[in-house]
């Protein structure tokens, strides 16, 4: 089985897929990629499925080699990368030859970068998923000298494609929907929340991020004695002193702090990718408006695949031009005349 070797690993590298839905009642949150859209973009670029496990890189990259040549793609946060010195484009199918060194630098924009491989990471699934869930003690952060099993690239001759991706790495307006506790907040507090500009605090991880703001807090009377209730990722939780936290993939499943609303899944990648200091504002949708944005990972992947466009390369830029099979599919010449 081919392997991916980490010659140098940043501190926030984990194996991720789309997580483990269905264990809320046992206290296990879904987990999975902090920016699931980036995982799907990688799968679209590589013709892989929604179950393609990737390396998630929080803030810092690493240096990688593979034992068998494979196509790959870098998605999510912008991280400068090169193969033995040759620059690698983001959101584009790339080829990593066996033994060549892929070096991925720290994020220059966004937080979570993803390294997707055509055959995926093929570590043993636990509860039907390969996702590392740090707070649940499933899997660990990757370290220098780790070697991971990967699937073989089944289409070594594929034509590279690229994806134009709308910017989701710079914060901006985040759409939220009401939840079970929205009505516990006063109209004044809700209005103030929707007109405040927040900044992502440096404190944050795969569980959630903290928001900073100027002005008075968003607390509420009796907010510390509410019955604990179920949480979904995207929920915006107010601690006792009125500080908002947005909960992400590895959030807890039950919590007592009231939640003013919930970021819709379509906008959650924007939250996860907001680097410290990035400005975020919130816009309340009605439940009907929010529901209209609901989709499935499978549908998202189909749409992304349809948006992939061929990469047109200038032969002058192809250093290993002679390595390509430039003529293929030679025919006897009478194909069209045959029955």
């Amino acid at each position, binding site marked *: 089985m081919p392997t991916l070797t980490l010659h140098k690993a940043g501190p926030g590298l984990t194996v991720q897929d789309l997580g483990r*839905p*269905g*264990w*809320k*009642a*046992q*206290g*296990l949150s879904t987990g999975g990629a902090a920016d699931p859209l980036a995982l799907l973009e990688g799968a679209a670029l590589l013709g892989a499925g929604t179950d393609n496990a990737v390396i998630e890189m929080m803030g810092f990259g690493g240096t990688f080699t593979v034992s068998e040549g494979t196509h790959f793609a870098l998605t999510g946060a912008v991280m400068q990368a090169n193969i033995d010195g040759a620059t690698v484009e983001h959101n584009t199918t790339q080829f990593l030859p066996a033994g060549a060194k892929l070096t991925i630098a720290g994020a220059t924009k966004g937080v979570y970068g993803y390294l997707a491989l055509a055959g995926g990471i093929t570590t043993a699934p*636990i509860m039907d998923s390969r996702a590392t869930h740090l*707070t*649940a*003690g*499933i899997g660990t952060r990757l370290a220098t000298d780790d070697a991971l099993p990967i699937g073989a690239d089944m289409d070594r001759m594929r034509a590279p494609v690229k994806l134009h991706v709308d910017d989701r790495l710079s914060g901006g307006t985040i759409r939220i*929907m*009401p*939840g*079970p506790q929205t009505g516990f907040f006063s109209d004044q507090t809700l209005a103030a929340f929707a007109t405040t500009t927040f900044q992502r605090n440096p404190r944050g991880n795969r*569980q959630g991020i903290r928001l900073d703001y100027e002005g008075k807090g968003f607390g509420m009377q009796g907010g*510390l*004695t*509410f*019955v*604990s*209730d*179920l949480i*979904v990722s*995207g929920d915006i939780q107010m*601690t*006792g*002193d009125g500080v908002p936290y947005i909960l992400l993939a590895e959030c*807890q*499943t*039950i*919590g*007592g*702090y009231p939640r003013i609303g*919930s970021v*819709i*899944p379509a906008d959650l990648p924007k939250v996860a990718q907001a680097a410290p200091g990035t400005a975020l504002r919130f816009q309340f949708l009605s*439940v009907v408006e*929010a*529901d209209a*944005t*609901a*989709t*499935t990972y*499978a*549908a998202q992947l189909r749409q992304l695949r349809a948006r992939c466009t061929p990469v047109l390369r200038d032969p002058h830029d192809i250093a290993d031009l002679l390595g390509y099979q430039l003529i293929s599919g030679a025919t006897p010449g009478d194909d069209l005349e045959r029955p």
Partner: protein
Amino acid sequence: MNDALQDPEICPLGVDGILVRFARNLNDTANARALAFRDQVEAADIAGVTEVAPSLVSVRIGFDPSATDRNAVTTAILTLLAEPMSGDTPPRRLWRIPACFSPDHAAQLAEAAQLAGCTVDQAIAEITTQQVRVMAIGFAPGQPYLGLLPDHWNIPRQSALTDTLPQGALICAVRQLIIWAAEAPTGWRHIGQTAFRVYLPETKQPFALQPGDVVQFAAVSDTDFATIQRDGTTNGGARCEVLR
């Protein structure tokens, strides 16, 4: 408001979920209704429903938005809510779990006892004489919400978060106890320490407790607790009795 609501509230919880809430405050009646409603929804096998997750006083029904929609699931839920519901179910298992309440293992016991209006010794007695029900599992894998303690234990969470607590910590707030399983911040107070692991991901049964089990804590000395911690043959010295 100490009873279950006459008409449960039906709220959105995510674009693919509905929360049915049986009370605004924690009480035994609402908890029993939530656990019974979980069984009802599971038995009904509603088309497009992907997850039925019970909590202290509520149940979240998750659905696949490509297979059904909020209106269809809500209609099915309302039909089930109109059916007569079964009453309380007796506990299935009784767990006896050793806990140490010495100051080294219970940094905030004195503070919590003061908030509850009793002495430390009274607090330990109240926590260990009562059998508490696993009302829900959550926050972290396998982590039980145990209750309910007497009314004077309705003490609020701290407004600031404690950054981290040892695994097995016994913590309390709002008439409940938790055996801590997570490496995460909490606003609950640390009042005792067990060596019990509620979550054993390396085993075939990763979750020790189930909603509906009851737990009784047994106070042990520092010395006995150290022995329990060293003994790898039991799960924190806990004993489990099957009641039915």
